[in-house]
């Protein structure tokens, strides 16, 4: 399955764009710290967490050509598990992360195993179906998940006796997760298995003939992506002290994909830029019109028509042109 990835000559541009994107992400990540008001810190934490989920999805889409329409289920299931566990066990940060990572890996692992023999459209629909099964559970299993109302009123995040419920603390936790998640994802992509994943994306039959265990590589990629998304998802409910079924729904999965595309498929920092653009527009627009869903739809259409290669790639193109002049 091709994902519209650039041919070899474009790679230099892509790399440069990646670097500019990294600088941009760092500058933008510092902005809430400098301004320091509660709203932008909370919003920044949300962007960093969702951006981390987008980055992990990018590992699957860009790295492996595995377009999953169920990634929100991985992210949201981790959030639900953490929120439910916080209710009975207390919201200790390491415990929450552990539970979130386990839940994320579980759902992502199921998706990886179920889709082992599928490709193309069948892969897309199967991940969608598994994701919607998670949504059905979140929506109908009222005693545990709160059904349509979602979960509120669980304990606030803490580390030992240190309370982590201020916007600044949440932002720092989110930034830490984003940083570690990025390191994990990057080292996976650069490790032999990450290279093998790219091989499986481009030439699955040849990779099999070379003796690579294609299925095992795919499932491993799913597990890593699930762990990263799970860690981010575990903290997500504590940003607004709320998690609802929308965070597991496939429309959220589609939103994660469009964020990846806005940022640039294959660019790990791009995910953060995509999350920033998407969430910023959504928040801004919904504050002064009821027709914000229309605008969300327009974002999708405009992105694929005008900027299918994403910000990171676009920046790279500018950079290369500028360098030659």
């Amino acid at each position: 399955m091709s994902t519209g990835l650039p041919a070899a000559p474009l790679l230099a541009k892509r790399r440069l764009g990646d670097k500019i994107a990294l600088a941009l992400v760092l500058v933008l990540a510092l902005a809430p710290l400098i301004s320091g008001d509660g709203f932008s810190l909370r919003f920044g934490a949300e962007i960093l967490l969702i951006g981390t989920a987008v980055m992990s999805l990018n590992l699957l889409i860009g790295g492996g050509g595995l377009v999953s329409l169920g990634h929100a289920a991985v992210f949201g299931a981790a959030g639900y598990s953490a929120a439910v566990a916080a209710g009975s066990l207390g919201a200790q940060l390491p415990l929450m992360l552990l539970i979130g990572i386990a839940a994320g890996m579980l759902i992502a692992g199921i998706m990886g195993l179920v889709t082992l023999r599928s490709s193309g459209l069948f892969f897309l629909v199967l991940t969608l179906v598994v994701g919607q099964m998670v949504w059905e559970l979140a929506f109908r299993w009222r005693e545990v998940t709160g059904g349509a109302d979602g979960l509120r009123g669980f304990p606030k995040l803490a580390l030992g006796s240190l309370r982590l419920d201020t916007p600044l603390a949440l932002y720092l936790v989110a930034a830490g997760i984003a940083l570690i998640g990025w390191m994990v994802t990057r080292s996976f992509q650069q490790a032999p298995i990450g290279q093998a994943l790219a091989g499986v994306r481009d030439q699955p039959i040849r990779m099999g003939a070379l003796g690579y265990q294609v299925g095992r590589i795919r499932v491993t990629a799913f597990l890593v992506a699930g762990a990263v998304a799970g860690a981010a998802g575990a903290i997500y409910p504590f940003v607004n002290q709320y998690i609802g079924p929308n965070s597991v729904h496939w429309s959220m999965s589609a939103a994660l994909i469009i964020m990846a595309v806005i940022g640039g498929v294959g660019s790990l920092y791009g995910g953060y830029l995509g999350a920033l653009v998407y969430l910023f527009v959504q928040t801004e627009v919904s504050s002064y019109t009821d027709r914000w869903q229309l605008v969300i739809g327009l974002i999708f259409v405009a992105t694929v028509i005008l900027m299918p290669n994403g910000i990171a790639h676009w920046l790279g193109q500018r950079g290369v042109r500028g360098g030659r002049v």
Partner: protein
Amino acid sequence: MSYYLVQTLNALSFSVLLMLTGLGLSLVLSLMNFVNLTHGSFFLLGGYVAIHWIGAGAPWWLAFPAAFVIAGAVGLVLDRFPFGRFYPRTHLMQVLLTYGLSVIFADLMRWGFGADTMSLPTPELLRGVVFVAGLPFPIYRLFIIVSGGALALALWYAIDRTLWGAAIRACVIDRGIVETLGLNTRRIFTVGVVIAAGLGGLGGALGSGMLSAYPGLDEEVLLLALLVVVVGGLGSFGGTVLSALLLGFVTTFSRVWLPEFANFLSLGIMAAVLVIWPSGLVVRKMRPV
């Protein structure tokens, strides 16, 4: 026993709706390899058209052709822009484009038709119930089964037995060869999209008497139609019919036996089918290249 007979009829009427919608989606998907997620919007649009048509007092039997024509016209416009330039693009881009469009349509329809659940003002002739082995069964659902079945039969005849159908089937298999024979495949594609959209609208018009019409129905139907097409296997008429029946029965009976987690169960069963047959139930044999 008669209870299960009535449930079987229920499942059958739902299957027929799924079949009509799925056949439309399948046409576009196998013909052009184009993933059209706006198909659920055509369904809902057809439902609203039929409800307003009959509500306005126009002849009721014309409501269904009207839904076909209006949804088909929307399909024609979309084929000109922006679908046309997305036919050769990757599935990922098609999914994002059509998903975005479906979100736009959903919001526009909520704007135009309101957020309330509307049901079809059933014409006098189709109102009331018949007694099947002692239990009541709505006449309208029998109407769905009969008319939907007849329509599917007509469609099968058109695709399988006429020259037009042969051209469409040839396009599915090898577009390039069809082009060398002097046929304008771009025009065949347009016809395919229009018919598919029309079938979606028609399915919605028929379905509005059973499922009503409300914001969010488009998404539910889209998911079911996608499942029907994918589980049936791409490009196979028989497969689509088979999987529509399977999904219709699975959904209906899981609602009977496990109402709370019915969708979970039916999604799980369909996922299991896809795990066992990763390319759908009916796979066209192809020479490996």
